[in-house]
């Protein structure tokens, strides 16, 4: 295969970033640029760098210097995790793996020239490009809500600052006040996430404000782990939680952030905290690169390669691949398949049949954890689920505690797998 060694357009930002890596840039090495340093991007960058042992030049572009995982942010809201413990730096990827970590935004992809443009003005050439930017919100999906007033009605669905804001608002609710969640339509990041959020808000309120109420406005008739969550709500938070599904107008909702009201199918309700989780779509850069059909980027099931550009892979939440849920675990699993196929193309290393898996743990109350998972394999038209499991209702306390402890182990495992 041909490797295009393109004249590198040195700019201040890119050049400065280059200096931070101790590795001497070997001329002529194939280049992989990874956009987004989360479960998909960080994992892919690390595996390509680790397994190619210097044969591939890996650049990771991520705007934040400390990445706060969205997974486990609900446990922070419930008081089970400190925000500081959910933050991860990129130093080890730079120092131990020789990855060129560039803290910048990618604002454009030139698919003909095979370069990505940075917000600071530079450009990075690539032979293979990985886009793993996570989600953006569909504007107008909840009438009355926009990014402009996300401080009044937080989404708290990208981790970090917004989760801190939502928790502060929950803790400041008046006695006997009301928390509302506008749940998102399918498909969205982390299918059990909104409902674990409800249990964690209920847990925090039960201790600090036990007469407070929780209202879920939901456009979906049913949701992930529903029987498990409903059992847990009955057992631990009886009388606190009410859910309005589409049969009672949960799919016809507007909000007014200034008045702090929610209009559900024509009935206006006053609320004290309103957690709006809008409809979702692939991160902006994937749309800008012209790789989407509708809201998501279709990919080949056996590799996670974009169906629209043979040099670009799309990982994690932004991709449309079939049966895998949008989750950090899924993105991490997909990243390893992508890393293997890209290395195979660039260095001739072995490419084995893809295999994917996912598990999602949720916490219902102290030491009451549940999980759902599946394994997946590529079929002709999509990534298909081939087996699955889920925790059962009525499990004993010891098993639930073990499941929770296992989720802590998973967090430790996956963040080590991402950041080294």
């Amino acid at each position: 295969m041909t490797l295009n060694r393109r004249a590198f357009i040195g700019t201040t930002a890119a050049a400065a970033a280059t200096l931070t890596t101790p590795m001497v840039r070997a001329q002529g090495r194939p280049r992989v640029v990874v956009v987004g340093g989360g479960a998909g991007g960080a994992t892919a960058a690390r595996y390509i760098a680790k397994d190619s042992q210097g044969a591939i030049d890996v650049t990771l572009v991520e705007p934040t210097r400390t990445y706060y995982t969205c997974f486990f942010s609900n446990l922070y809201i419930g008081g089970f995790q400190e925000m500081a413990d959910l933050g991860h730096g990129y130093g080890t990827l730079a120092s131990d793996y020789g990855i060129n970590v560039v803290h910048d935004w990618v604002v454009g992809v030139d698919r003909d020239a095979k370069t990505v443009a940075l917000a600071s003005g530079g450009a990075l050439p690539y032979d293979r490009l990985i886009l793993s930017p996570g989600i953006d919100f569909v504007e107008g999906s909840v009438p009355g809500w926009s990014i402009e007033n996300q401080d009044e009605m937080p989404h708290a669905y990208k981790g970090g600052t917004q989760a801190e804001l939502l928790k502060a608002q929950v803790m400041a609710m008046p006695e006997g006040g009301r928390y509302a969640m506008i749940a998102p339509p399918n498909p969205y990041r982390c299918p059990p996430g909104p409902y674990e959020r409800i249990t964690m808000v209920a847990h925090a309120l039960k201790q600090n404000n036990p007469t407070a109420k929780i209202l879920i406005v939901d456009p979906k008739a049913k949701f992930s782990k529903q029987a498990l969550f409903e059992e847990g709500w009955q057992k631990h938070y009886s009388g606190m939680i009410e859910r309005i599904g589409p049969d009672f107008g949960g799919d016809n909702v507007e909000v007014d952030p200034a008045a702090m009201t929610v209009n559900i199918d024509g009935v206006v309700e006053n609320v004290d905290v309103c957690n709006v989780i809008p409809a979702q779509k692939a991160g902006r850069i994937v749309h800008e690169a012209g790789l989407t059909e509708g809201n998501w980027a279709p990919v080949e099931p056996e590799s996670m390669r974009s169906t629209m550009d043979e040099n670009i892979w799309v990982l994690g939440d932004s991709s449309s691949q079939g049966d895998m849920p949008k989750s950090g675990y899924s993105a991490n699993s997909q990243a390893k398949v992508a890393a293997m196929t890209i290395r195979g193309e660039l260095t001739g290393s072995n490419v084995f049949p893809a295999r994917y898996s996912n598990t999602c743990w949720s916490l219902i109350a102290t030491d009451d954890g549940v999980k759902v998972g599946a394994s997946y394999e590529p079929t002709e038209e999509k990534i298909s689920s081939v087996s699955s499991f889920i925790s059962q209702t009525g499990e004993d306390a010891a098993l639930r505690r073990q499941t929770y402890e296992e989720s802590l182990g998973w967090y430790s495992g996956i963040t080590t797998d991402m950041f080294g």
Partner: protein
Amino acid sequence: MANAAARHIAGLVWAALLAGAALADEEAVPIGDADRGAELYTQCVGCHQVGRDAENRIGPHLNDLFGRRAGAIDGFRYSEGLARMGADGLTWTLETLDAYIENPRALVSRTRMAYPGMESAEDRADLLAYLRQFSASPANIPEAEPTAIRREVDLPPEVLEIAGDPAYGEYLSAECTTCHRRDGASEGIPSITNWPEEDFVVAMHAYKQQIRPHPVMQMMAGRLSDEEIAALAAYFARID
């Protein structure tokens, strides 16, 4: 793992292997040809509606059929036989639907479904591939019924003697290290580094044969071939 327990499981695993129960080399295939299934569905449409606005008619509607407890639609009057099977735990999956469509009365003895049965396994697979499209997708509700099946092949029993390839094991280990840390730290999830290879192989087969109960490990081990288990054992035994 206690050695006595390991030997005991080894005995069980050997017994299972000798019984020809070892399955490996899986490869996912779609359930069937959904377009062909749509044509076959014309045999059903006199009694069952499916799709947007489908309602109960002579038979119940078939939306969200996969994963549904048998006899569970509110407002439909089921035969006593079907209602009892549902109460006893019958859930509609690919396997149970396949058996029911092949011969309704063989599965549910007093069902009212007046359908003689679909003889061809291929026809049934195509019909079920069509009907699967009207149930929740794993992408939206991860615990939804699988959308593909695994082709499985019997293997001869010389399993514990396989010399694992640690390089292949290193590649395969990427799937383990999402949870199990490569540095051997154990925080809620056990360390799997530096085990005697035989103990590792025995443990993985015990999960694969579902003798050990952990569902994540049953799923992970379930699709590893005997060579792959040996390779992982070789890799994790030699890790620094």
